[in-house]
């Protein structure tokens, strides 16, 4: 008998997660103890009820492997274009500053020919995609505004009625009235990086001369809010909470600042992937993070009002609903399948650098040979894409026997070994993934205990 399950307990009771049916089952204390000892009789009792079927998985192979060629032929959804590798800031945690295994800043700029080819490529390979998006990225894309305008002009020339979402990620320091009016006219979705209160933003997001960029950005945002209020209301802020950032101060800043009060703020932390040093957040970060997350959950179960929920943590609600969907009951019967993590390389967020090289997304290392999945002139290397898609194959036995199979978020980026996927790097992340999966299960059970309605919330979210 080899069913895969995981017991856990919360303040409200004892549970077991059964991987074979993707179910969380409420159990008694004695069952909890017996299952922890892998007691056969107890397992048999669960089998009789239809749970804890023997592990059917024999091989790790993504179900979409045979279709990947067709996805890449007709189902590409987004192209992110790197306009330049230059930036007018030198943010300390930037992947291109030397702290990560990645390229460095350079003066390289993409050619309009490469942009046009990229746009043609997206259009020609997205017939089955209801909606497509083209994103402009850098470095700092606003350094090449004329090029960006040329690119948009080309999109309008060739799209022939097709709806295209245009997006831009910017540090915000180069926004001018001209730029804003252009973005308004073309209905761009803009993401601006702003890390929090002045002291903490300026600790990391600086000009090459070391001066902080906070005042420049806030002045521009105030001006945009006054002159272009509708455009302003649609901006999104991305806040990176680095290890030297005071989460409490950033939290207070975003919740209280008059200029930013109506804007959505996404909070991100530093990525460990390809980092040369360990990323370690101190205890105060964890305490505040847990506290604010808890408030979001209390709001979800109706114990506090929404105004007490930090702006930085409102996205927790959506994340919980996504986690819940992972728990839709289904039976794993396949002998060949793959853990939940990877996206289809090149389909959801194809990234093209200044030289026309393709990557699965803009977050992977551009200096990694294995992450380069093709080139605009030769197309996507399907063999490589399939290899990256099947990242679980390098830790096959571990994945086959892992309770967190359905919850796994590991993608190829977590196993980037530069010339091939690295088993060691991937395994190094496994404990975090399992911890995260267990935390998610505990959260779901607690919310269920307090009668949180996941189904209704999913529709409200829509």
């Amino acid at each position, binding site marked *: 008998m080899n069913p895969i399950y995981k017991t856990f307990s919360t303040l409200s009771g004892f549970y077991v997660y059964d991987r074979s049916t993707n179910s969380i089952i409420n159990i008694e204390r004695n069952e909890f103890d017996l299952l922890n000892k892998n007691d056969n009789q107890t397992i048999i009792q669960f089998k009789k009820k239809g749970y804890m079927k023997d592990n059917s998985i024999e091989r790790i192979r993504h179900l979409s492997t045979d279709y990947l*060629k067709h996805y890449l032929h*007709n*189902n590409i959804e987004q192209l992110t274009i790197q306009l330049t590798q230059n930036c007018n800031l030198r943010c300390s945690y930037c992947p291109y500053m030397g702290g990560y295994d990645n390229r460095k800043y350079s003066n390289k700029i993409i050619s309009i020919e490469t942009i046009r080819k990229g746009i043609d490529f997206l*259009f020609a390979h997205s017939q*089955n995609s*209801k*909606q*497509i998006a083209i994103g402009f990225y850098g470095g700092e894309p606003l350094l090449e505004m004329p090029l960006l305008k040329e690119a948009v002009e080309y999109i309008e020339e*060739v799209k022939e009625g*097709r709806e295209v979402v245009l997006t831009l990620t910017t540090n915000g320091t180069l926004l001018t009235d001209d730029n804003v009016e252009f973005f308004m006219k073309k209905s761009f979705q803009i993401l601006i990086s702003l890390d929090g209160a002045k002291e903490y933003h300026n600790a990391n997001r600086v000009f090459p001369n070391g001066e902080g960029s906070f005042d420049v950005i806030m002045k521009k945002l105030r001006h945009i809010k006054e002159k272009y209020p509708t455009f302003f209301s649609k901006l999104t802020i991305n806040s990176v909470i680095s290890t030297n950032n005071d989460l409490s101060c950033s939290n207070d800043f975003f919740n209280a600042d008059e200029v930013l009060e109506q804007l959505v703020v996404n909070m991100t932390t530093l990525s460990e992937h390809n980092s040369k040093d360990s990323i370690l957040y101190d205890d105060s970060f964890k305490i505040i993070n847990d506290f604010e997350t808890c408030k979001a959950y209390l709001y979800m179960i109706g114990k506090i009002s929404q105004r007490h929920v930090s702006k930085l943590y409102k996205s927790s609600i959506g994340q919980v609903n996504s986690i819940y969907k992972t728990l839709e009951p289904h039976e794993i019967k396949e002998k060949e399948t793959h853990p939940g993590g990877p996206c289809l390389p090149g389909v959801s967020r194809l990234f093209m650098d200044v030289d026309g090289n393709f990557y699965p997304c803009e977050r992977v290392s551009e200096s990694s040979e294995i992450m380069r999945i093709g080139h605009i002139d030769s197309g996507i290397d399907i063999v490589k894409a399939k290899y990256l898609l099947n990242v679980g194959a390098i830790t096959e036995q571990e994945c086959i026997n892992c309770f967190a199979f359905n919850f796994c978020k590991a993608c190829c980026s977590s196993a980037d070994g530069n010339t091939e996927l690295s088993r060691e790097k991937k395994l190094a992340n496994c404990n975090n993934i399992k911890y995260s999966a267990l935390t998610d299960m505990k959260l779901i059970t607690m919310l269920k205990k307090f009668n949180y309605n996941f189904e209704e919330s999913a529709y409200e979210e829509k």
Partner: protein
Amino acid sequence: MDKNLMIYPFNKRVSAIARYAQLLKGYILTAAVSPKNYGYDGKDVSYIDGGEFVGITITSSFREGLEQCDCILFSASTFLMDMNYYEEKIQEAGNCGKEIWITKELVKDFINAQKSIPTGVKVLGSNPDQLRVSYNDTNTIQEINVPILSLFQVGEFCHGFDTQLLMAERFEKEGYRVSKVSSNTLGALFNVHMVPDYIYDPHMPYEDKIVSFNHFLNSIVEDNQPDILLLEVEEAILPYNNRITNHFGVIPTIISKSAQADVSILSLYYSDYDKEYLDRLRTFCRYALNAEVNYINMTNETMFVKEINYTDPLHYVSVDRDILLNSIGSNFKDYDCMFFHTYDLVSVDAVYRDILCKLSQNEDVVITG
């Protein structure tokens, strides 16, 4: 005299028009035109649908296509379009004096964009003027005295309509008189009787729809005296899940109550189905649709459901013919139901022969030739 027909934008929603161009009635396909950005310019139709080479090349010049045609059919796209663009193109075609048709799917796109259908445009496959019959003790189901081959499917792009055309072609080649009924908008180009619009009327009671449609079928049989009736239903037979309901398969259910099938074909997406699932599907058809599924057409499209908060949760991916045919040949060869695929004409012929044999052996069903 046949009309020269242009299709725009040409895509897999309408590829059957080109693939079965030899079966068009009253039309000659003169231009299959797609915008340049589709990447189809200069390619054969088979590039889109993955079937055998057709010999019809897709072009990208709207203007040139207009010059060659008498009438133009505007099709919905497979992705979100700016409806202003359609209006401009329709205007351009109208200014050139062309007869303009739009598909039923495109009508829905106009409605969803809260735009009126441009004036002077006709909806292909619309059938608004059929007699409605109120269900009562005297107006009930009439016996339909010809064998009925019903074709059902689980969703879009399952090639149910293609299957109907192929089967009809085979029956007609052997001298049988065939009447075809379909809810596919393209049917109007192939001498297919279109399902009346009242089927979709939210204010008409189900009982009235069932009886009315039954009388509609009977009138076709009386007027045309066919040897066989091929009844194809485009709409999906059942929900995918609690959120993607496919209108709960209401249309197929109504139609199945109007006329019991003697033989049924079910079209499915490509997948690695297990026997248990197929048995359950066939059981569903047996009791919900009163249809014994004897034949399964597996299309080369597979369908994935993405998260519900995407704008459209259904995503389609095509697979190679070779993968499909290998799968049919190996995974399903022992299943007690014939599998076939519309791009494998040998398998289509085999199913046709079997259907003919089955109908010929059934004493209650008389098929004369």
